[in-house]
């Protein structure tokens, strides 16, 4: 912690960064912090409750963050994948951001939870994590942490759904998507949803109906998932932001598995590796095509 705070003080004092974006203690657990003066550096914390993917604040369509100056962002390994996504998609240039990596031993599901990691509290995304020490960083702080407890709950649920008939899956998803109010919190919380104007906000033509009936909700969630295929870093922020509890991670994780199976691609924190959609191989699988 001291390492992180000292670094923050130095970055701000030297004028290298205008704002350091990390985590602080809020009334309901950890939350994003925007540190703009060295004096506030001691507010910063890092523990297993720091679940937020702060790469979201690097979205170029956030004038209120841009106004604070050049950002230095604290990233876990999974967050660094999102930063790599932004770099890959030319939303950010590497010299416009300072990345402070933290070694991570897994996080809990919500920032209000106690920091103790158990099989019941650990976030599903930490299962199979391959970037517990982020590589795409300018500074790396913190000590190595022990492996988190393993939970394969998400993959288990996906397997259960896969085992059902299409009709049963349809019933499951209609009951889930009926709750959707189309607040688009899932989009806003997503670090990779950075479009200047989201397809669902476009009206000429209106591809996706904005009404929260099931027809509009299906069009939205199919499109959201499809647009994130091969791009989603699996941080789960969409599901955490959803005020009605739609299990969006099931869809995102399913597509991660699909992309792995079809294109042998796993989302990476190397911005030089192209995303699978937008690239192709001449010998891609095509058994589904007649």
């Amino acid at each position, binding site marked *: 912690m001291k390492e992180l705070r000292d670094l923050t003080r130095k970055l701000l004092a030297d004028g290298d960064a205008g704002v350091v974006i990390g985590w602080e203690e809020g009334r309901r657990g950890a939350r994003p912090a925007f540190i703009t003066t060295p004096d506030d550096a001691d507010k910063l914390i890092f523990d297993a409750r720091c679940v937020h993917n702060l790469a979201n604040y690097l979205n170029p369509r956030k004038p209120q963050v841009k106004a604070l100056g050049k950002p230095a962002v604290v990233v876990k390994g999974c967050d660094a994948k999102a930063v790599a996504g932004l770099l890959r998609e030319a939303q950010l240039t590497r010299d416009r951001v300072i990345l402070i990596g933290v070694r991570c031993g897994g996080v809990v599901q919500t920032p209000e939870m106690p920091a103790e990691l158990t099989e019941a509290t650990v976030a599903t995304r930490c299962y199979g994590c391959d970037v517990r020490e982020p590589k795409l960083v300018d500074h790396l702080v913190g000590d190595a942490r022990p492996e988190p407890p393993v939970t394969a709950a998400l993959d*288990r*649920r996906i397997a*259960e*759904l*896969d085992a*059902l008939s*299409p*009709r*049963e*899956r*349809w*019933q*499951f*998803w*209609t*009951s*889930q998507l*009926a*709750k959707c*109010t189309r607040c688009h919190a899932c989009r806003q919380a997503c670090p990779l949803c950075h479009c200047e104007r989201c*397809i669902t906000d476009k009206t000429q033509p209106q*591809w*996706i*109906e904005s*009404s929260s*009936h*099931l*027809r*509009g909700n*299906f*069009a939205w*969630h*199919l*499109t959201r*998932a*499809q647009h994130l*295929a*091969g791009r989603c870093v699996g941080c789960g922020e969409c599901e955490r932001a959803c005020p009605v509890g739609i*299990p969006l991670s*099931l*869809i995102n994780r*399913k*597509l991660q598995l*699909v*992309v792995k199976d*079809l*294109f042998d691609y796993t989302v990476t924190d190397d911005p030089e590796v192209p995303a*699978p*959609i*937008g*690239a*192709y*191989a*001449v010998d*891609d*699988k*095509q058994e*589904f*095509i*007649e």
Partner: protein
Amino acid sequence: MAATDTPMKPDGFHPRITAFVCNWCTYTGADLAGTSRLQMASNVRIIRLPCTGRIDHMFIVKAFERGADGVIVSGCHPADCHYTAGNYHARRRFGVFRELMDFMGIDPQRVTFSWVSASEGAKWKDVVNETVARVAELGPFDAYHELAGDTVTGGEPAPGPFEAASGAETPDPLEELEVGR
């Protein structure tokens, strides 16, 4: 196209099929099927696009929204794309989208993906007939068409915030399972 042997279920169900085809191969192939007077089902409405690379997954969604029971997406064979690589990109996207539809409970049998070249009039006939037969067997896609429901419900109360607008019964298929809990 001749409107002869339209596959029909006994109840007279004629599936509505929307076909999104590329301008260079499949459209020409379909044209050839017509000029060759090949007999095929007349249930297919063709929408011509420059390339399969232009065909967005939302086209399929919109087709279902507006009443299609099945969809055909067809274009040039690999290596034949007029724009070099449009069909390769489409292949990746539809490979993913097909799995996504399946996962969300949209029977992928309702969507046919095919490569039909300009000379393959006979293949187009087969693709059409097979798709129509398969979708006829599946029945009308009312599940999708009625998603928004007839929400002007006369004296009925409007749906509550957690009810499907259609008011349709959604029995819980997962009661026995741990899914989504």
